[in-house]
């Protein structure tokens, strides 16, 4: 058997310091996992030993994260068998039982954290999920924060932490429940060397306390992997080799793990990888110069008195801890940010942010991909050529040249969104140099890029510097990259600590490597004490009393890892509390929730009015007799009409009706008075503006009424007695005798708004977690789907009831609508109704994958049924077909009955009981549907 690919169970033996051989912590048996055509796991069979530190090494996108997700139970198994801690992860029962023993920290800085929650609140939330008591949580949190150095930042929101601190916080959250298996997916990517070192020391200390714990780590740093017990080398979804770092080096006959890995890769994957050589620098004049550069944001000094000079063709490395002001300095050097004080010069001229010409001399590549992901590679290049005003012929030649040089020719018509990170970074570089700038400013261009791709990238950079004389200003967290720079500056907390050639800096510090020198400088500047071996000293907080170790610890751990209950109110409420806290800190959603209701109530109360008053009209009186004047006076007297200056001619009618000035025109024919007297039945013409049919219909009704009344009065005046009517129709407008629009509309607006806003707010709830990544916590903690959904729903029900009260008060006080019925009926109905409408929002949220889709889906799912099919304007009984069915089951229909019944009809429970039953039925149906549709694992 080939030793490089034979991970037979016996091969765990070489981890000889783990003499107490136990069952493997994790077994993968013929596991296959695909995303479309890409194989992330290609029939993987692998045993991972327990109780040691296991590293997964390999380039980006070969499947490492997928494997870890499968092991953590966060991802659904497609084919094969995954056994973790002695059970099958395909079984939901086993997952529920072992999840308290597993901790999973996903890739991405602070991805499973809640950004608006403070450091303490984040850890506390995880403690609650694992059912820890208040006292236990406080003790554990105090201990974890002290040992990670986060104690003094306990109140800081997670989104205000630097990358390194986020990772430490993530670790605290993972360790709160004493896991037996700790899974870390690239925990130190994008983290500065000092924080990285502190992070691993922390892991070491924790392992010291809990020797039985297994740790699985995916990493891109080969130097880090050197320290692990056992490694799995991964490529294209397959295991290349397993064994300790020493074994791998030995097997391949190489001196470093990085080279060992390159040797393990099949030749076709390697491409033309050759060791980098850097030709000597022939530095020219000063190109970039910073003089006493300072940047303040309010009271905070982000960058303080930076002085530096970079010569033509030089590769200048800018190194520093996370959040030390590197990016801000670079933005000042590109002219993106005007400095508070001091000046930045480019080729001797002071940079001016508004000067378009300086932008032509600088190429800038930001930390994140900042090109158009939806436009093809060619179009991105073309757009930049256009904007930099390259003549078409030259642009075409230049694009072709860059495509060749940056190896982009095969992907010219692809969409960057679909390309691997390494190729995207090459495209960004190609765009940055397209207009032949004198200076290239590159902000962490290789973060997250695998070693092979990184070397390719550096070849290009060296080429640009040495062949084209481009001055390069670059930041990086990789020390081997910093080593390639001509000169570097170390920055910390807004200041430059030291500058010089890499070897000089190491020598000055008396350190064996640049990394040690860097860590030394940073530790000194930030006041971290280092042990004699360069490691930070063990904090005194590690009191053995609070850290159960050994057999005692196993027993204690066993106790806390008892089978979690199937349903826990505490877990449910912990989600409610967290959701409420997040809502309180999100001004946008809160404004929508409270102010939105008020605004929309005013808008709808006044806007959906069917009252028609003050209709403008004018008269074309061709008779001008006493009879015609007395006729028109009657209309002028009506409160429904408002008279405008008289009309002159038929053309005048046309013109003024056309302009919209008149809603109605009356035409009294010549000889009206004479004809009337003769009984010749003259005709009065009425012209209505049909543009708004509703208004025209109402106007017609009014004018006919006034007409009839005028005639009756005229006859009465002439004969002295009222004419005999055949019958009298006594109309009783019940519940709203004056037919006031507000009395009809306001009780209908409340149900409308209690469906739109609560469902919209809740709809963002689940999908937001999907988008931000914190849904992972639902996958990997004991919380059940029902607890999660109900927990998220509760705060919105409370908020919606507050809204309901607010609208109720507005209706009474501002709109002056009387409330005649039973208060308790109204509010109990409202409670059931908002439970149903928030449930509807949750259902939308589980159905969609993005917040935008959730907003759109909820709008369509609520606006149309609520406005058209729930009886707001036309009663449900007037509907036919699908609309009638929807109207009958839609919750709004029934609460509308309750609202109108209690407001206008003075009704109570006895009369409205029938409306409660559909609401009571809707709630469990919606909750059940959401629970069934929500996945407890990612695909």
């Amino acid at each position, binding site marked *: 058997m080939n030793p490089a690919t034979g991970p037979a169970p016996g091969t765990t033996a070489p981890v000889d310091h783990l003499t107490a051989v136990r069952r493997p912590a994790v077994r993968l048996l013929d596991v296959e996992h695909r995303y479309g055509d890409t194989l992330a796991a290609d029939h993987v069979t692998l045993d991972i030993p327990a109780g040691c530190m296991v590293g997964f090494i390999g380039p980006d996108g070969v499947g490492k994260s997928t494997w870890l997700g499968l092991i953590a139970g966060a991802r659904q198994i497609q084919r094969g068998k995954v056994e973790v801690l002695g059970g099958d992860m395909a079984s939901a029962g086993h997952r529920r039982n072992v999840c308290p023993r597993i901790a999973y920290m996903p890739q991405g800085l602070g991805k499973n954290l809640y950004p608006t929650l403070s450091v303490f609140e984040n850890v506390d939330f995880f403690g609650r999920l694992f059912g820890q008591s208040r006292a236990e949580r406080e003790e554990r949190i105090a201990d974890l924060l002290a040992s990670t150095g986060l104690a003094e930042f306990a109140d800081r929101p997670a989104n205000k932490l630097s990358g390194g601190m986020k990772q430490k916080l993530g670790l605290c959250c993972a360790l709160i429940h004493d896991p037996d298996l700790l899974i870390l997916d690239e925990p130190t990517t994008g983290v500065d060397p000092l924080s990285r070192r502190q992070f691993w020391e922390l892991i070491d200390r924790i392992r010291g306390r809990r020797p039985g714990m297994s740790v699985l780590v995916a990493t891109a740093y080969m130097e880090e992997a050197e320290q692990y017990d056992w490694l799995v080398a991964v490529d294209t979804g397959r295991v290349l080799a397993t064994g300790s770092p020493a074994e791998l080096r030995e097997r391949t006959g190489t001196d470093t793990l990085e080279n060992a890995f390159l040797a393990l890769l099949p030749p076709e994957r390697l491409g033309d990888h050759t060791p980098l050589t850097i030709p000597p620098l022939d530095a020219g004049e000063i190109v970039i110069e910073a003089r006493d550069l300072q940047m303040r944001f309010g009271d905070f000094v982000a960058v303080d008195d930076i002085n530096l000079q970079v010569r033509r063709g030089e590769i200048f490395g800018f190194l520093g801890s996370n959040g030390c002001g590197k990016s801000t300095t670079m933005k000042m050097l590109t002219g*993106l*940010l005007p400095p508070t004080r001091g000046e930045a010069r480019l080729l001797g001229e002071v940079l001016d942010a508004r000067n*378009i010409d300086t*932008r032509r001399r600088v190429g800038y590549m*930001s*930390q994140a991909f*900042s090109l*158009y*992901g939806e*436009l093809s590679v060619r179009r991105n290049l073309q757009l930049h050529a*256009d904007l930099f005003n390259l003549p078409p012929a030259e642009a075409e030649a230049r694009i072709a040249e860059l495509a060749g040089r940056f190896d982009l020719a095969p992907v010219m018509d692809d*969409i960057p969104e679909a390309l691997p990170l390494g190729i995207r970074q090459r495209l960004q570089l190609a765009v940055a140099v397209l207009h032949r700038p004198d200076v290239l400013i590159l902000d962490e261009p290789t973060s997250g890029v695998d070693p092979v791709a990184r070397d390719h990238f550096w070849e290009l950079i060296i080429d640009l510097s040495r062949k084209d004389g481009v001055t390069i200003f670059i930041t990086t967290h990789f020390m081997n990259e910093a080593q390639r720079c001509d000169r570097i500056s170390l920055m910390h907390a807004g200041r430059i600590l030291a500058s010089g050639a890499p070897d000089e800096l190491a020598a000055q510090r008396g350190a064996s490597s640049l990394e040690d020198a860097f860590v030394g400088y940073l530790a000194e500047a930030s006041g971290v004490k280092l042990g004699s071996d360069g490691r930070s000293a063990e904090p005194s907080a590690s009191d053995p009393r609070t850290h159960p170790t050994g057999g005692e610890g196993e027993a204690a751990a066993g106790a806390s890892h008892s089978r979690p209950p199937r349903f826990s109110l505490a877990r449910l409420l912990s989600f409610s509390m967290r959701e409420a806290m997040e809502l309180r800190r999100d001004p*946008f959603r809160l404004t929508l929730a409270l102010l*939105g209701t008020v605004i*929309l109530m005013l*808008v*709808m109360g*006044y*806007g959906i*009015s069917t009252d*028609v*008053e003050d209709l403008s009209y004018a008269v074309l009186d061709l008779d001008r007799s006493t009879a015609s004047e007395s006729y028109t006076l009657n209309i002028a007297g009506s409160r429904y009409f408002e008279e405008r200056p008289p009309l002159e001619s038929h053309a005048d009618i046309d013109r003024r*009706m*056309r*302009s*919209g000035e008149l809603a109605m025109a009356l035409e009294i024919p010549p000889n009206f008075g004479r004809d009337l007297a003769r009984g010749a*039945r003259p005709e*009065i*013409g009425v012209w*209505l*503006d*049909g*543009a*708004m*049919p*509703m208004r025209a219909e109402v106007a*017609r009704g009014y*004018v*006919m009424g006034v007409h009839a009344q005028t*005639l009756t009065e005229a006859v009465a005046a002439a004969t002295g007695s009222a004419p005999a009517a055949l*019958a*009298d*129709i006594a*109309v*009783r407008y*019940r519940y*709203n005798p004056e*037919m006031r629009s507000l*009395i*009809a509309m306001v009780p209908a607006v409340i149900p409308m708004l209690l469906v739109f806003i609560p469902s919209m707010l809740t709809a963002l709830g689940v999908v937001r977690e999907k988008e931000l990544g914190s849904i992972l916590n639902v996958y990997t903690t004991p919380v059940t789907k029902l607890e999660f959904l109900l927990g998220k729903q509760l705060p919105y029900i409370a908020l919606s009831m507050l809204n309901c009260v607010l609208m109720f008060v507005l209706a009474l006080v501002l709109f002056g609508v009387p409330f005649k019925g039973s208060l308790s009926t109204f509010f109990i109905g409202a409670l059931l109704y908002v439970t149903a409408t928030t449930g509807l929002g949750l259902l939308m949220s589980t159905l969609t994958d993005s*917040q*935008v889709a959730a*907003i759109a889906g909820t709008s369509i799912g609520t606006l149309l049924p609520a406005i058209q099919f729930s009886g707001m*304007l036309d*009663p449900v009984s*007037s509907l*036919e077909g699908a609309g009638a069915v929807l109207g009958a089951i839609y919750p709004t229909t029934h609460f509308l009955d309750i609202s*109108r*019944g209690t407001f206008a009809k003075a009704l109570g429970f006895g009369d409205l009981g*029938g409306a409660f039953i559909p609401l009571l039925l809707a709630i469990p149906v919606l909750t059940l549907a959401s629970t069934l549709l929500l996945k407890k694992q990612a695909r």
Partner: protein
Amino acid sequence: MTTRNSTLHNTWHLGIKEFHSLLGDWTMLFLIVFMFTLSVYADARAKPESLHRASIAVVDEDQSQLSTRIIAALQPPQFIVPERIGLSDIDRSMDAGLHTFVLDIPPNFQRDVLAGRAPALQLNVDATRQSQAQTGTGYIQNIVNDEIRAFMQRHRSTAAQPVQLVERAMFNPNLDAGWFGAITAIINNITMLGILLTGAALIREREHGTIEHLLVMPVTPFEIMLSKVWSMGVVVLVASSLSLQFVAKGLLGVVVPGSALLFGMATLLYLFAAASIGIFMGTVARNMPQFGLMAILVLLPLQILSGALTPLESMPDVVRWLMSLTPTTHFVSLAQAILFRGAGIDVVWPAFAMVALIGSIFFALALHRLRNTIGKMQS
């Protein structure tokens, strides 16, 4: 190259880029097509005839030839076939909302009519269902009166009215609510997409980090903004013109007396204002969901209170005054004048001027805000 030329050049190329971006965004494309086809069609068709299947019950205490005749005249499609209920059921039926109308024909009704005693019928109307209550009451009164008159004509002649009222509806002779629905839907969609597309285009740049890249290129915020305004304006203009031509005029048979060209010009002018509002909102919201929530709060008042759905004159003065500051109100009034009433530029020029004025103010405000915030939009 001069600055002016380069501004035109950059605005042109950035605008073309917006088209390509939009072509790659299936959700937005679907939204545009849906809004200007199905949604317009549905809005036109969803507006029921003024009265449709109104639910009515009758208490027939008379059981005469006349009462039977009256009940038989209340028929679908305006009414459901009247349900006969007892006198004591009236309150219960109305309270439960089973019927909007209950007509009570008293005992000896026919006898009293014939005797010229002008007896009273009682019509109970559920006035919480206001629109149906209003139109339905008129219908029932007319039907009942007609039936009584026809019944009486066989017994004695009745006097004709001394003055005849002849009404004609201009611009929409049959008062077809579908016409109004279709045109209103197009007007409202212009507002909605004009704001959403430009705002979303800015937010997309922000979320994808491309705004940072634009800032290091030789383009100004003015060019960035103008490019989004013109490109998205063209999209909405083309979509709304096609919708007017093929969906409203073609499919729904709406008679549009006005000039499509004049309406197109008005739309373009208005889109300049709407897009500026979109840009302004895009500078306030940090991401697409926030933008979406904000859009609901801005769009609903603009659409409901601008006079597009209900007449402006029935709104309180404060609301009318506030709404006169928005470009939407003026656009709605000129769109209705052009499309429904065939008004020419001689009639609508004041509204044109107002849209242009308000649009310029919004554009200036949005540009000012964009200049101030664009630096902070970087990641």
